[in-house]
């Protein structure tokens, strides 16, 4: 479903951010993407949602490939993904409900469908009662739930979460993580980039570790990388 094949990524004013990264994310899978700061976690995710193109190698996402990807393909690719960030990225002048509806409006969904879908996802993330509150009237954990609801409302194949608990305290972190697990349980794949090892230890999911832009460990391989990084 998502497949990175021998991906290298160099930025104009930097060294190699990714070196020969090959990774396959299967349908419904939950993956921890770990590694120190600067290891390349965000870069992997940005390649997946086509915010960046690989310097060499290919990235394939549900029928789209970076080889021959056109600018107008990008919106269609992103509609199959849900993306959340550490800083929530909500619109301050819109309520929780409007923030979620926004994702449907901009993709041209019919108005009659929007309200029902919004209510469903807000209920799913446990915020049905706070639908009319503005981001500044919500706690950090609640704001991240709104962001997750927005990511889910288009029924994505995979949820990409870049450090979603980075700004949250321990309790809120646990809540958001539980929510991500619940989402995964309904069949949505989740790629969770984090350097919070406590989180990683809490669940028996596949763990991929990056170091200086290279994959050094993949629990799916059950052995250090470098030897057995064969594509399946």
């Amino acid at each position, binding site marked *: 479903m998502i497949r990175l094949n021998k991906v290298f990524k160099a930025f104009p004013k930097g060294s190699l951010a990714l070196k020969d990264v090959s990774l396959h994310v299967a349908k419904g899978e939950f993956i921890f993407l770990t590694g120190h700061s600067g290891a390349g976690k965000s870069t992997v995710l940005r390649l997946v949602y086509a915010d960046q193109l690989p310097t060499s190698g290919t990235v394939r996402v549900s029928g789209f490939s970076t080889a021959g990807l056109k600018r107008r393909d990008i*919106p*269609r690719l*992103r509609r199959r993904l849900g993306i959340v960030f550490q800083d929530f*990225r909500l619109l301050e002048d819109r309520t929780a409900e409007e923030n979620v509806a926004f994702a449907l409006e*901009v993709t041209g969904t019919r108005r009659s469908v929007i309200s029902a879908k919004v209510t469903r996802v807000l209920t799913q993330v446990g915020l049905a009662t706070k639908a009319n509150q503005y981001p500044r009237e919500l706690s950090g954990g609640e704001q991240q739930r709104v962001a997750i609801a927005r990511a889910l409302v288009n029924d994505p194949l995979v949820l990409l979460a870049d450090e979603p608990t980075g700004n949250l305290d321990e309790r809120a972190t646990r809540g958001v993580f539980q929510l991500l697990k619940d989402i995964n349980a309904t069949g949505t794949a989740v790629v969770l980039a984090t350097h919070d090892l406590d989180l990683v230890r809490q669940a028996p999911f596949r763990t991929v570790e990056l170091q200086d832009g290279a994959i050094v460990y993949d629990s799916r391989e059950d052995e250090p990388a470098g030897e057995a990084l064969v594509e399946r």
Partner: protein
Amino acid sequence: MRLTLREALLSFRRAPVLSALAITTIGFALFVFGLFSLVALNLRSTLGEIEERVEVVMYLTRGTPVEVVTVAIGDIQAFPEVESVNFVTEDQALERARQELVEFQGIFEDLTANPLPASLEIRLKPGFRDSRNVSAVADRLSGFRFVEDVRFGRDWVEKLDRLRDIAGVVGLVIGAAFAAAAMMIIATTIRMTVLARSREIHIMRLVGATDGFIRRPFIVDGAIKGALGGVLAVVLCYGAYLLVSRGLFEASFFTGQQASLIVLLGTVLGLTASAASVGRHLPRV
């Protein structure tokens, strides 16, 4: 579509000062443009009235037989430039002189013979009332055997030409200058809105909005501002027109069609400027 309109209108609520500024600047630019058009319009109708009077007079040799004159009239009427030919006999000329020159009544009473020649008054069709065509016709008329003299106001036909040329060029230059200024202002306001809303645009992209979708509200926004500027310009022009026509001299105002043309012009300016600006700045946010 409804969403696009809502987004576009939101920009007025979000940045009321900037929006008002954009509309007034466009309004004033088009106002000056409109004023000039009004002047040109009124000048043109005045020029038209003067042009009406452009005619070539061909004085005939005394004693030219009427049959010859009749044939000549037929020939002249066949000229492509000629609208009408009017035959003024010697007696008619004298009668006209009597009526027009009342002060000299006495002189005419004393006349024993009529000193005035018969003439043909030739009017040209609207497109041919400039000096080149008038001279050409006059030359051709001199060729007739029974012609005593051919006259037309050569000097002021040429002046009329020049006035018309100048009016056209000045109108074009000033119009273009103001259109360019108005477009730059719209482009700038759109750029500022794009930058001010970069966060929102970023989020729209993340959730899969197409470039066209992101662009549309900005373009509609520019078009609305341009149209409102056009309406403002027409209102200002009308104010100026009232002031002038009350106190100074009679003038005419735009027809409904011309007024809507100014509004349309504003809309097109706003649309083009915002489309160009969004096209340039959107990929960078």
